[in-house]
């Protein structure tokens, strides 16, 4: 039991930590590629500087994403060997394809891009950062195909006590992917857009390199506006889809205990999981039916009925995920999204009316909005993964039977502490470097190399 708990903690920590870096990689690779392309097409040196400045921040973040991703891949075998045996026939394939199709592309061309200045023809060089962007986004596709199988198993048959793939095409066209992939990737674009917007706002507030940061701001804003609108729309349809595909998850996300038609939407609620009720709630009548079906009537099943159905289908047990935390993570994600929509439109208005730089409060708010997409990303994954409990693979394997039997509590504890410690230290250093380069701005070349072979290291810096 302790093993299970520790293994779950480890999975939670390593996944959330990994996904602090991935979204920015997804979006910033595209933004840097856009900047680089503008530079190549116009020959304007500002865009070269932009490519290098934002590119440097991209690289620091990218390194963290890569190294935490390695743990992510091996992790299934280490802590979840019975899961790996049970679904390896299906789950391993997208992981291997991710490496073959995406990781090679991404990392090989990143090397070319970093070291290719002046070595490659300009267009080919710009193409290499596009390859990085394509690689990153493709990797998101394949890992989400894998994750979607856990949420909604398709294209399989249970044989010899394990899930075997019967239809690869069904696996990659899992309807769940069509919502999860755009929602996740667009979330990454929003993260990167607000990263660029926020840092640009920081410098515009201080009147540093106004031309440089105005242009950066504009690119970030356009990209961010499109992304935030799309991510919100996809999120809405995804929730409607989940009402059908994973009703238990959505009922938990809404703390919706009793089946009702029409169903009310609880904006906030004090959830009492023990007595399976909300002791307090502010609810909008008929709204949950509307959100679920675009109609003010329609039955939305409650947690209690879903639990009874699950027991009838899978046998006795608790099939209700932790309601309180799932309920609030959903709300925090939505609130974060709403805040970003607001900030995007305020920025657009201020930009269009030419008042942006005269509004320090807005610039400050934009700067402080940098962490908001991160909150949305993390709570979104919390909803997706914790909302799936107690299942590892929805309806097929429970988390408790997925954990490695050969790994002892002490071993998990060792790696849990080890990874957490190293992750903690790296987070501090990563932040230190990002802040340093952000503050430094574009003027300095990102990395200055002191030429000459004086031999004395002290002479290399002052």
């Amino acid at each position: 039991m302790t093993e299970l708990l520790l293994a779950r903690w480890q999975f939670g920590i390593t996944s959330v930590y990994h996904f602090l870096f991935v979204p920015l990689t997804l979006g910033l690779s595209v933004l840097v590629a856009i900047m680089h392309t503008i530079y190549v097409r116009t020959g304007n040196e500002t865009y070269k500087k932009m490519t290098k400045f934002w590119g440097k921040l991209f690289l620091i973040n990218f390194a963290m994403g890569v190294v935490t991703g390695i743990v992510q891949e091996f992790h299934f075998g280490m802590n979840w060997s019975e899961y790996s045996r049970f679904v390896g026939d299906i789950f391993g394939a997208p992981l291997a394809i991710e490496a073959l199709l995406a990781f090679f592309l991404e990392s090989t061309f990143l090397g070319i891009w970093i070291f290719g200045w002046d070595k490659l023809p300009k267009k080919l060089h710009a193409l290499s950062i596009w390859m990085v962007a394509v690689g990153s986004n493709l990797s998101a596709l394949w890992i989400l195909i894998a994750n979607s199988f856990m949420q909604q198993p398709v294209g399989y048959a249970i044989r010899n006590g394990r899930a075997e793939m019967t239809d690869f095409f069904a696996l990659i066209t899992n309807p769940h992917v069509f919502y999860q992939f755009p929602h996740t990737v667009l979330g990454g674009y929003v993260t990167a857009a607000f990263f660029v917007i926020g840092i640009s706002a920081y410098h515009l507030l201080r009147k540093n390199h106004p031309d440089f940061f105005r242009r950066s701001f504009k690119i970030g804003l356009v990209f961010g506006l499109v992304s935030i609108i799309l991510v919100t729309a996809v999120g809405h349809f995804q929730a409607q889809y989940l009402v059908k595909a994973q009703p238990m998850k959505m009922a938990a996300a809404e703390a919706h205990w009793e089946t009702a038609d029409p169903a009310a939407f609880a904006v906030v609620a004090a959830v009492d999981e023990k007595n399976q009720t909300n002791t307090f709630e502010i609810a909008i009548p008929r709204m949950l039916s509307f959100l679920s079906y675009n109609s003010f009537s329609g039955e939305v099943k409650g947690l209690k009925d879903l639990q009874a159905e699950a027991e009838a289908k899978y046998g006795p047990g608790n099939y209700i995920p932790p309601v309180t935390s799932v309920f609030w993570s959903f709300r925090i994600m939505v609130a974060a999204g709403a805040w970003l929509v607001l900030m995007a439109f305020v920025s657009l208005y201020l930009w269009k009316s030419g008042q942006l730089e005269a509004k320090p409060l807005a610039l400050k708010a934009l700067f402080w909005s940098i962490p908001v997409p991160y909150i949305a990303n993390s709570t979104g994954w919390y909803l997706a993964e914790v909302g799936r409990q107690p299942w590892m693979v929805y309806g097929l394997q429970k988390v408790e039977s997925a954990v490695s039997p050969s790994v002892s509590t002490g071993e998990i504890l060792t790696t849990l502490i080890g990874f957490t410690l190293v992750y903690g230290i790296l987070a501090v250093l990563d932040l230190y470097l990002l802040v340093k380069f952000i503050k430094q701005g574009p003027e300095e070349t990102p990395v200055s190399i002191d030429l000459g072979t004086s031999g004395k290291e002290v002479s290399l810096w002052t």
Partner: protein
Amino acid sequence: MDLNILWFILVTVLFIGFFFLEGFDYGVGILLPFLGKNDTERRVVINTIGPVWDGNEVWLITAGGASFAAFPNWYATLFSGFYLALFLILLGLIVRGVAFEFRSSDRNPAWRNLWDWMIFGGSFVSALLWGVAVTNLLQGVPIDANMQYVGTFFDLLSPYTLAGGLTTLLVFTLHGALFLTLKTEGEMEERARAIAGKTGALAIPVVLLLAILTYTRTDLFSKTGAAVVFLASAAFLVLAWLLLRAGKNGWAFIANSLTIVLFTVSMFWALFPRLMVSSLSPEWSLTIYNASSSPYTLKVMTVVALTMVPIVLLYQAWTYWVFRHRVTAKELHY
């Protein structure tokens, strides 16, 4: 030939690619603090692998992904069984991966020195443990009837597997040193040559020891093919050393590369058709049949691999072509 065999070969190829490419990355990382006497020199050393190390590491990720896809029981038993060893390798890879990016991001010499030693440590630990891991596959580890590893971390350490670890450590270091003789010039090239000579002189007796222990501890020599390849691998190591002494650095690099390739081939050949030997009972060993995915999955993955691997090889080879010139202090950009 059935697909299980094909996938065994493919996984072997991925490990060959990984050890061959990442082998010199590890070697360069291990030699970094000793060959680079000042910051500029260390930049030169790092930049020899700068554009390619990340792509090289993906060979490992792909090998891991491929073993998961093709032989899920192997993936599950191996990674949950070699738990702490793998943890150490992962820590090494994490620290080393960020170190490449972080070191140049601050000019404080203490900061740079710290990350240079991290690159060293990460490379050293990984290079050592890969040898320990591979020899354990062949020597056999306690695996029960349910494919569960029932030993501890210390069961992975024996004279034979430690000799295996030392072998990969030294051969990868030599590989890195020889690589540096080709990618640098002047004094650095000379230093790399000198250290390659010393490393080679150390590696030869260790490989001899490994050969003896392989004979006493494993069944490798009961297979003529595997035995011949293994001995050829050792012979190429001696040849590499002789070629180096004769001043033929390029040929020495090729000879030592063959050492790595053939060593990997011999290990997998000796394993075949097993993937992991059980020391408790031969019937409990994991094989390419009892550990494999369904024929359907293997078929899908075969199509994917046979289309993608050649493309990957093409663009990775192109990277090496783009960065084929020697790295000198004059043209350090990054």
